[in-house]
């Protein structure tokens, strides 16, 4: 049986990027105007959202995006 | 993390460094390696005073006293032939076991002491060697025995001063000395659960002329164990004698419980490590207990 993969020592397809410090992880992605999201969990179980007051985020929150 | 810091100073003289420390008050911090300052992440810090340009990285001997500059790193201590030859190399051992190489390359002896942690590994061999520290204030310097330097966890004798030098007297000659440093941690690079430095000086008949036992991480400050030392002084270091001294060590420590270990475990391990250390010292000094 001719095999091209089985039993061969193969390098990972992204291997070179990993050993040379290439941008491979989420935090390595830098785009202009990048937004950072933060999850605010509800302190109440099974509650229904009536209104969201984002004023204490100091004007830096955009959205909220649901 | 430190976006409130508004100044990073690199003074060229100790006087200037102390002046900046005074000027900054409680919001100024000394930076040598920087590892403690950054980890502690105190948001009230406004100015940083970098003391690495003050020429305080050295290891010298004058007469019978070794003087080590405060910004000498753990890696430098570990690699120094002189420190490896001093008292069986116990200070070099403490520096080598101090943490991973990345930290040993930047963390300094002065910083480890000034941080005032009860678990400061380098304090333990230094206490066993009756070391003292030189503190530079605005107008004068003073020399404080290390045994008086540590006051409480995180609190030292520093009063708006810079720790500039550590002085280590060569151990008294005569007879044969055996020295060792042992550390117990959850991993090799962990902060100590218990650390012990011990030295035994035996005369030609195998009687103990001098015993030194120092411990870290088992009391509010790094400590000596004088009552245990007294049990050995003037006696032959037999297994029974050593065991008696270790029992005393275990009684005399006052460990706390924390995330790393319960107090009782530390107390028991203090005795165990002291025993191993003392037997090792006796062996080195030519007697098998």
């Amino acid at each position, binding site marked *: 049986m001719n095999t091209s993969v089985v039993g061969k*020592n193969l*390098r*990972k397809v*992204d*291997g*070179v*990027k*990993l*050993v*040379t*410090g*290439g*941008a*491979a*992880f989420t*935090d*390595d992605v830098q785009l202009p105007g990048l937004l950072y999201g933060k999850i605010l969990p509800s302190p109440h179980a099974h509650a229904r959202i009536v209104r969201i007051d984002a004023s204490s985020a100091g004007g830096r929150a955009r959205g909220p995006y649901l | *993390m*430190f*976006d*409130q*810091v*508004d*100044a*990073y100073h*690199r003074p060229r003289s100790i006087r200037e460094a102390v002046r900046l420390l005074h000027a900054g008050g409680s919001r100024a911090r000394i*930076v040598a*390696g*920087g*590892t403690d300052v*950054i*980890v502690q992440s105190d948001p009230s*810090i406004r*100015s*940083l005073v*970098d003391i*690495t340009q003050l020429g305080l990285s050295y290891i010298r001997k004058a007469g019978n006293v070794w003087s080590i500059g405060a910004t000498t790193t753990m*890696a430098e201590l570990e690699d120094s032939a002189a420190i490896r030859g001093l008292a069986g190399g116990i200070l070099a051992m403490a520096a080598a076991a101090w*943490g*991973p*190489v*990345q*930290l040993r*390359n*930047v963390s300094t002896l002065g910083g480890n002491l000034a941080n005032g942690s009860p678990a400061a590994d380098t304090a333990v061999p230094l206490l066993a060697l009756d070391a003292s520290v030189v503190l530079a204030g605005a107008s004068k310097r003073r020399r404080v025995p290390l045994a008086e330097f540590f006051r409480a966890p995180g609190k030292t004798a520093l009063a708006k001063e810079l720790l500039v030098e550590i002085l280590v007297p060569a151990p008294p000659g005569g007879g044969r000395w055996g020295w060792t440093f042992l550390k117990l941690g959850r991993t*090799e*690079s962990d902060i100590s659960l218990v650390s012990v430095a011990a030295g035994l000086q035996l005369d030609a008949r195998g009687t103990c002329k001098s015993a030194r036992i120092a411990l870290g991480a088992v009391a509010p400050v790094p400590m000596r164990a004088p009552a245990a030392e007294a049990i050995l002084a003037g006696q032959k270091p037999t297994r029974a004698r050593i065991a008696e001294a270790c029992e005393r060590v275990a009684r005399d420590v006052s460990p706390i419980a924390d995330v790393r270990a319960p107090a009782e475990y530390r107390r028991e391990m203090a005795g165990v490590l002291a025993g191993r250390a003392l037997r090792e010292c006796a062996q080195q000094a030519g007697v098998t207990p």
Partner: protein
Amino acid sequence: MKKLTIRLTVNAEPKEWSIAPGDLLLDVLRHEGYFGAKRGCEKGECGACTVLVEGKPINSCLMFAAQADGRELLTIEGLAHGDRLDPLQEAFLDHGASQCGFCTPGMILAAKALLDKNPDPSEREVREAMTGNYCRCTGYVKPVEAVLAAAKVYRRAR
């Protein structure tokens, strides 16, 4: 709050950067595009942020950028020579020493510092030198193997 200028060498290239006094080296490096230094524990335990300063491994998360003024840095991006990978990088690839790869830059740099100082380390010495590089994927066996293999290649090349 006044900005500072630091002048340093990164991967043999002179750099001049404007920083805030409290900036950490890790943040500045990543801001300047050196993403190989990773943000891991941010307290000097995991070693994912390791870079070499004058050949010595340090945790860039525990260094103020201002401390790098006048220094020579090597990051993982500077290890390969163009397309030619360093034997350590080759060995990590060939021995399966990278899984997710997050710890890899730090490990390779720590290993490089070791091999530059000690060209024929024992396994124990390799493990000791890499004590400050944590890996959640590989269990350390393959990285240690890779370092020992790379050491052989380095020695043959001398």
